[in-house]
């Protein structure tokens, strides 16, 4: 008998008193399993070390239990810590997978600086990329501060809006806001003194990015998250799109920083007449798809799911803000019980496509 097509979700697992929990994607794994069984795809959840022992969590009668599992044809990498991807177990898993003829998608976290580099190789996307540099010399920040009214410093490995600094020239000094603090501070220092002090304090690698005058709702900056999935023949499609407005005391719209989830159409129609809103939405969607395809083409390894963050400035120009290779599942409008999110279906379908193309 032919072996049943099999997909493993790779993630961090907590197992207390025989109750396995898969963190923020627990519910999502149930949807994957449910839709997978409808489509004839066997889905189990595992971690790098469990996989090496041929163990995984299988669902039956609504409960997950640890079982012996067959090798996976496809592994969907949802490890949420970068260090898990650098563990010896992960490296061993990759070797094992290659020997068994399986494939992994969403090979690893992509950091902000490489993402910028990959997309920039596609010339036609450059108008939508804010000017960005790796901060490897204090002078570079001064140059940005004199070129742009506002500048962002972002940790290249940061996520969920953590550790972002917004700098602004203010009559001789610098206005400084941190994404983790509610208030802004004004620092009365010459720019070069301030910059070299900041450089001394900074340990994590950062990118410098041109600040943008984003369109806002009630003075709360807005961004858009397009969740994109790969289909057949290297094509991509948008499975969900939401707008996020920053919390009133924040400059980043991430939900983890108190951002509010809104419908894309509602936001765009607040800004534009209907026909313009339509064009803008299509354009955002098309840019998201091009950016996803560009990244998948340039980055090593395979990618089947990407979260593309976009924003629109006050001149109505769209911008690619960042790309997340382990996009949060909370941006999809919360599903009613027993329903399956489009992204879960997309992951199952893509896995089946990979298996079929491998034949």
């Amino acid at each position: 008998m032919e072996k049943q097509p099999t997909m493993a979700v790779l993630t961090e697992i907590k197992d207390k008193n025989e109750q396995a929990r898969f963190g923020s994607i627990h519910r999502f794994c149930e949807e994957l399993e449910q839709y997978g069984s409808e489509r004839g795809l066997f889905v189990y959840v595992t971690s790098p070390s469990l996989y090496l022992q041929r163990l995984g969590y299988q669902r039956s009668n609504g409960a997950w239990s640890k079982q012996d599992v067959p090798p996976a044809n496809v592994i969907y990498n949802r490890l949420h810590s970068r260090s898990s991807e650098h563990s010896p177990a992960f490296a061993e898993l990759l070797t094992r997978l290659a020997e068994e003829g399986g494939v992994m998608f969403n090979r690893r976290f992509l950091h902000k600086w490489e993402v910028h580099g990959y997309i920039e190789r596609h010339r036609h996307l450059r108008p939508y990329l804010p000017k960005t540099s790796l901060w490897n010399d204090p002078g570079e920040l001064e140059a940005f501060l004199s070129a742009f009214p506002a500048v962002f410093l972002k940790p290249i490995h940061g996520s969920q809006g953590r550790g972002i600094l917004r700098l602004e020239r203010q009559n001789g000094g610098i206005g400084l806001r941190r994404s983790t603090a509610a208030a802004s501070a004004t620092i009365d220092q010459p720019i070069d003194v301030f910059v070299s002090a900041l450089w001394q304090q900074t340990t994590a690698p950062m990118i410098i990015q041109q600040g943008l005058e984003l369109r806002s709702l009630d003075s709360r900056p807005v961004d858009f998250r397009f969740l994109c999935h790969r289909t057949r023949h290297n094509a991509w499609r948008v499975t969900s799109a939401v707008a996020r407005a920053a919390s009133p005391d924040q400059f980043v719209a991430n939900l983890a920083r108190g951002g509010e989830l809104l419908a894309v159409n509602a936001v765009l129609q607040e800004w534009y007449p209907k026909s313009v809103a339509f064009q803008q939405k299509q354009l955002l969607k098309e840019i998201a798809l091009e950016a996803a395809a560009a990244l998948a083409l340039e980055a090593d390894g395979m990618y089947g799911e990407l979260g593309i963050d976009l924003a629109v400035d006050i001149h109505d120009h769209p911008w690619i803000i960042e790309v997340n290779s382990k996009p949060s599942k909370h941006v999809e409008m919360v599903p009613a019980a027993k329903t399956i999110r489009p992204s879960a279906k997309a992951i199952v379908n893509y896995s089946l496509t990979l298996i079929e193309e491998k034949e």
Partner: protein
Amino acid sequence: MTYTLVIDEQTTGTVVLPASLPLAGQTMAAFGSLFVPCRIVSSASLTNEAVIAHDVARRLRIPFAAEVHVFLTDEAVHFGPLVGIFTAGFTTSPNRPVGTRSLFFAKLLAQQKQVGGFAFLFGAPHIDWNNGMVNGYFYTERGWERHLVPLPTAVYNRLPNRRIENAQPFHTITETLQTRYGIPVFNGHFFNKADIYRRLSTHPQVKPYLPATAAHITAKTIEQFLHRYAEAYIKPADGSLGRGIYHLAKKSGAYECRFREEHGDVKTLTFPTAMAVWHHLLAAAPLHRCVIQQAIPLLTVRGRPVDFRVHTNKDGQNAWQVSAMAAKIAGKESLTTHIRSGGTVKTLEEIFPDPGERQALISRLCDAALTLSRCLEETLDAFIGEIGFDFGIDRDGNVWMFEANSKPGRSIFHHPKLKEADEQTVRLPLAYAIHLSKTAITAPEALWP
């Protein structure tokens, strides 16, 4: 070679060129269809810069400084080329001027930087015939921009479909640009299968690549084809993408007809006579717009038939090049290997791991593609910049041409390993436009014999 155009805000009425350019008393600068009298001088201190006074640049309507080619005639120094990409379906959105195709054209226009000169997108409403100007869409590092420029030096026809192309206003526009203004228009027309076949079949060199094809389908032609070849296809003469294709076979005296239903399932019907098949088809398909074609027993990989997509382009030297190549493996239940119907795109490296076998196939496919490109160009009285071929290889290793498309789709080249090839197919039409521009400016008699 290209020169960096420098717009000089200090001087007026002058163009300064590197001494390496052989000047011969030219008295004008030109850009597209515009000429402006000015002083043209040489400077030994310039190597790859061309300095143009701001008033001359403004009067020539040069939209911005760029890397340019310089073409010399007896009278004028031309900066260019100025390539117009002609299409239809414009929206009112400045950020999305041609709807869903906007980023596709952005990608095409962004390649202009690689080859030098200017390229812009325009449609019928943007031409001001009275003043010989076009309000074109340029794609710069800032995104889409409008600039009023002279008529272009070459036009790349990218009308989206056959229906629009045949509509009178569009036909007249490309015709007028070419005949009245001497602006070469390339990729003027979608090919018609029957017409292509008729033209090519008179060429002894390419005849062996052509499966037997007939245009007027009667019960008798069906009978003849199935008698001679056992299997045949009926397909729309002007369609592509594998839609509306019927597969016919004669099996133990009965006539079998397979086709894909609208919702995607493959259906098989059996008929006792060729006449019965014909009657069925007459009701189901626009037979007067179809051709019947000999089916070729295709090379298979792991039991599945494979066909090949080979893309050729004219390059900057006016020579045909094979710019991209991919294989398509049929899905489990496929009528043809058109990827819409569920086949898989692979590189030749992926399906022919043996380098000797692969090289032999590649060289056969290249020979066929280049020979056919040259012959097609010869038989058609038009400038053709690119052709997409669908080829099959039979079990004896012979190459067969199933289709030649003058406006081939490109989704097949989204395969990660075909990235370079994909870029080539976007860049080469612009390179060819440079050749056409240069020839139209410096040696028009070579273009219009």
